[in-house]
């Protein structure tokens, strides 16, 4: 009896044994700052910037132009352009507009996509009726919807929002459907034996079981949403009723500004995308505490 309670040498034993030694109090930040991963990242970024600077400046220094990259303004020039733009209200308005569109489209896609995916997964009739049209519409790239949605929707803003929504919607639905279908049938059977109703099965098994896939879908969907919103903004221009945003910022810099400004726009999008996916990952980790342990 007592030996059984000790339970030695099994697969996951190492997880639990670590619990007995008192963990050192270290903040997450200090852990991150001292990790190898963090410093490798820093070195890699610095290395990249130096490489870029050298290649871009090569013509000034030696008279020999490095192909392609030699035409790109060097990081110093980009930083100079950025420090100038940084104080313009318009630049931050672009950030705001794009972010607002991304999140509006993304949230709508989540609100509609998650229940839709779950319904497809749990109801045969629903699946039979809605899956075929869904599968026909899914391969159409969101950008192919732009002209049609400009015709459908009364304002440019609405057509951008719609296209953004589509970008995330299909990915989220497919992930939710796949995730819900791969839930171990034994979880459902256990709950059934214990007297779970359909409602219980849905809320206590299917939903938490699908959560990991929901967040995978959300992370991928978020990336697509940024791609789509930028393209939408480039196409729609900066008119009275919509437009603007980082996409338009890049486009107008290309038309009337400098290449350095275009690059500022590009890096801004990179940063915005990174922040958005970090946010999604953070939400994922707080709503699925058990996943951190994998």
């Amino acid at each position, binding site marked *: *009896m*007592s*030996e*059984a*309670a*000790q*339970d*030695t*040498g*099994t*697969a*996951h*034993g190492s*997880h*639990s044994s670590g619990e007995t030694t008192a963990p050192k109090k270290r903040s997450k930040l200090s852990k991150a700052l001292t990790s190898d991963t963090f410093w490798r990242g820093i070195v890699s970024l610095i290395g990249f910037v130096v490489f870029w600077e050298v290649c871009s400046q090569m013509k000034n220094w030696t008279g020999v132009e490095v192909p392609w990259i030699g035409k790109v303004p060097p990081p110093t020039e980009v930083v100079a352009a950025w420090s100038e733009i940084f104080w313009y209200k318009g630049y931050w308005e672009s950030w705001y507009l794009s972010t607002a569109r991304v999140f509006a489209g993304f949230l709508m896609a989540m609100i509609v996509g998650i229940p839709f995916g779950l319904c497809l997964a749990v109801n*045969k009739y629903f*699946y039979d009726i809605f899956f075929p049209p869904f599968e026909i519409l899914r391969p159409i790239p969101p950008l192919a919807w732009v002209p049609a949605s400009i015709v459908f929707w009364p304002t440019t803003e609405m057509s951008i929002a719609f296209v953004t929504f589509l970008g995330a919607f299909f990915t989220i639905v497919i992930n939710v459907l796949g995730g819900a*279908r791969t839930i*171990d*049938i*034994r*979880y*459902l*059977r*256990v*709950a*059934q*034996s*214990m*007297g*779970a109703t359909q409602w*219980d099965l849905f809320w*206590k*098994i299917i939903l*938490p*079981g699908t*959560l990991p896939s929901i967040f995978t879908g959300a992370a991928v969907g978020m990336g697509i949403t940024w791609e789509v919103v930028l393209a939408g903004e480039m196409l729609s221009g900066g008119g009275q009723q919509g437009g603007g945003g980082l996409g338009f910022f890049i486009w107008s810099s290309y038309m009337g500004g400098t290449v350095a400004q275009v690059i500022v726009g590009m890096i801004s999008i990179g940063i915005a995308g990174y922040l958005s996916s970090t946010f999604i990952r953070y939400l994922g980790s707080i709503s*699925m*505490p*058990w996943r951190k*342990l*994998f």
Partner: protein
Amino acid sequence: MNTNTAISGTSGDRSQATLELKNVNRGFGDDWSREEIITDFSLTVHPNELTVIVGPSGCGKSTLVNLVAGFDKPDSGEILLDDKPITGPGHDRMVVFQETALMPWQTTRANVVFGPKLRGDRSNADIEAEADQLLDKVGLSDFKDKYPIQLSGGMQRRAELARAMINHPLVMIMDEPFRGLDAMSRELMQEFFVRLFEENRRTNLFVTSEIEEAIFLADRVVVLSNRPTSVRQIIDIKLPRPRDFHMLSSTEAYEYKREAMELLHEEALKSFKRKGDQSELVEAFDKRSE
């Protein structure tokens, strides 16, 4: 040391239930692809006994478990629990599955209280108190707030036992519960489990493919025939209780083992010549779209 002191909540409900299978038939597929898995299967699981079913792999043991648990229905025949036919899943029969089927998103404790909380047939305080007792009994008091992934294989099985027992089932159905454990943990779990059974003698249907495990645990060993599966022979195990591992080296145990081995060997040879057990897999996938 004193983990086997009886606890008030569970030792009181000594189950007297009888489980009966009468001429049960079950097959899968239609027409030309039809395959009979279980034919004319009759067995009585006596109250307060540990009945162990052994059979060659792929012989339809899991199908049998699904039928008794009510996840599946027989094509013909009857399955009775205390003379009442089984119509579907219910908490009077608790299944402990192969590998582990603890919900990964719930802590050990949340997993244990899941059933009674779901039904709400008892007060929360009562459920919590019994969960504490059971977790203590299975030696997981310090792991209440851990997630299943943080537990060792043996701990997961013990958590599963607690999760089943808190529902006070009339019959426990164990579907190769210790499969996948390493030899050492497996032995410890068998010992732990046999103590648990001897303590409250809850009617138990235990399915395994290991003969030694069967003989060590059982009051009766039911040897199955190859597909289509039916009862090949029943061996009464007259080893004294409480059991311990030394008994396995006795002449008596050796004789049981030899007898069961011979029967199983014959059946396994037949099954060797047949195709695998894909139909169970296919059936499982078929089920989830319903």
